[in-house]
């Protein structure tokens, strides 16, 4: 299988602090890859390298290579707009815009193409909401403020908003950490469905979640990628002592 994302010798600094140390990994296409590890291990930072969200922080430095579809996105001349169109992100706290549900979903379409016809926008809204299983709940209230939704609905809406842009890759930064167990189960179900069309990388604190939904898992510790393998191997036959200690709950 051709890797969707290839990471070669990736180093990353916040000022003088090195947050990622010589990361090498291959992320397969249309597969869910989970990144686990204790707080501060650099898993979110790595995720934010893939869509260059770290650029918002001052004084950061990235070296190495991250190839997405054979293009090195670390290069300074990378077109961030098209990169972020291709590599979407779902955040830890659902962050719908303070606009209507409808406007949230057509946001991407509107910023990338001006003057889209209304009926096409309507189609995008319906399709995107259906793909996150919100259409039946919300179809009569599309003009309601997105801020009035429940947490789970908000997070689904954020995923729908992302899907509307038609990305290839979905980066999910602890997408369920604010949700209750039932809502988490439903969002995980959704992720399994999305896997058919998208390459998904999920950062999670929750090891059981990683075991439940992912095909590949990477374990990170203090900025290093300790082990990266098939999920069942990581959880049943970890090669590294530190991985074993983490998944058996000796620390973390």
């Amino acid at each position, binding site marked *: 299988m051709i890797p969707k994302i290839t990471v070669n010798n990736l180093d990353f600094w916040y000022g003088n602090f090195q947050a990622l140390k010589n990361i090498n990994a291959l992320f397969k296409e249309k597969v869910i890859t989970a990144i686990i590890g204790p707080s501060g291990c650099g898993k979110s930072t790595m995720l934010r390298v893939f869509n260059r969200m770290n650029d*918002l922080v001052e004084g950061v430095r990235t070296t190495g290579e991250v190839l997405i579809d054979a293009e090195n996105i670390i290069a300074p001349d990378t077109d961030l707009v098209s990169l972020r169109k291709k590599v979407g992100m779902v955040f830890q706290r659902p*962050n719908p815009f303070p606009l209507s549900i409808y406007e949230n979903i057509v*946001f991407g379409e509107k*910023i990338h193409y001006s003057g889209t016809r209304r009926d096409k926008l309507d189609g995008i809204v319906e399709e995107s909401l259906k793909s996150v299983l919100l259409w039946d709940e919300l179809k009569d209230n599309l003009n309601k403020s997105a801020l009035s939704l429940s947490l789970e609905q908000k997070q689904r809406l*954020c995923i729908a908003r992302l899907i509307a842009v038609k990305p290839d890759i979905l980066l999910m930064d602890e997408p369920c950490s604010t949700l209750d167990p039932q809502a988490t189960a439903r969002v995980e179900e959704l992720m399994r469905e999305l896997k058919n069309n998208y390459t998904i990388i999920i950062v999670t604190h929750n090891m059981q979640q990683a075991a439940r939904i992912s095909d590949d898992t990477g374990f990170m510790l203090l900025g290093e990628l300790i082990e990266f393998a098939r999920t069942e191997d990581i959880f049943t036959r970890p090669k590294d002592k530190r991985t074993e200690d983490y998944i058996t709950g000796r620390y973390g």
Partner: protein
Amino acid sequence: MRKIKEFIIEKLILVCGLASIFFVAMIFLFLLKEGMNVFQTVSPFKFLFGKSWYPISEPAQLGILPLILGSLLVTFGAAVISIPIGVACAIYIAEVAPQNMKEILKSGIELLAAIPSVVLGFIGMVTIVPWVKNICHLPTGLSALSGSIMLAFMAMPTIVSIAEDALYSVPKSYKEGALALGATHWQAIHRVMLPAASSGILAAVMLGIGRVIGETMAVMMITGNSAVIPHSILQPVRTLTATIAAEMGEAVVGSEHYFALFAIGIVLFIISFAINVTADLFLHKKR
């Protein structure tokens, strides 16, 4: 003993807290008591919509429409100038400027707010007035336009600092979300951050306008003070505030003229009260 002490302190603070409300109420009542007398000689309708203000002719003509229009025209002009510049400046400070530039701009704007209005008026008189006169080929530069430009400077600090605050308090996650969808910085600002900060920005604009409409000294010095209904922004006008300030000294206590000036005070009070309440509504809607 301790209880009594607590009680006394509590009540003392209460009295201080109520004092401001008490003073506002007393000021309004006093204005009302003095101002209402004018309506014994002129009907409220004629007072508000009368077209001539000749308070010392015989009989006195006490129509304040030219003054209201003068105030509105100067305020409108100042708003047209200060709102776009002020909001753009707030966007620049909140979103674009690098840290050190931000500090410089912020203290510059604070300084602008600290200049006494009479000094601004004086500077306007020797710079803006001749400038307006030459550029527009007018017989005199003392005009509504000069006043508007000057007042725009006074409204700017209020508009910039409150609008900047509103933009700053927009959750960072909105901006991140927009950028992560591939929005450019400007798209994130105008499609997400400005709508999110809109009520705060509206409040900033209202408070800026409130400052303009209540301003007296600078307008009196540079608007020319002729109480006629203005037909263009290039004409001299006289505002409500300047009328009170200029004429109160000469008006005979207890005369119609004297009461009419108080009635103008009531009109001003109502206008600025309305503006402040609106601004407050916007500010609270945000929360």
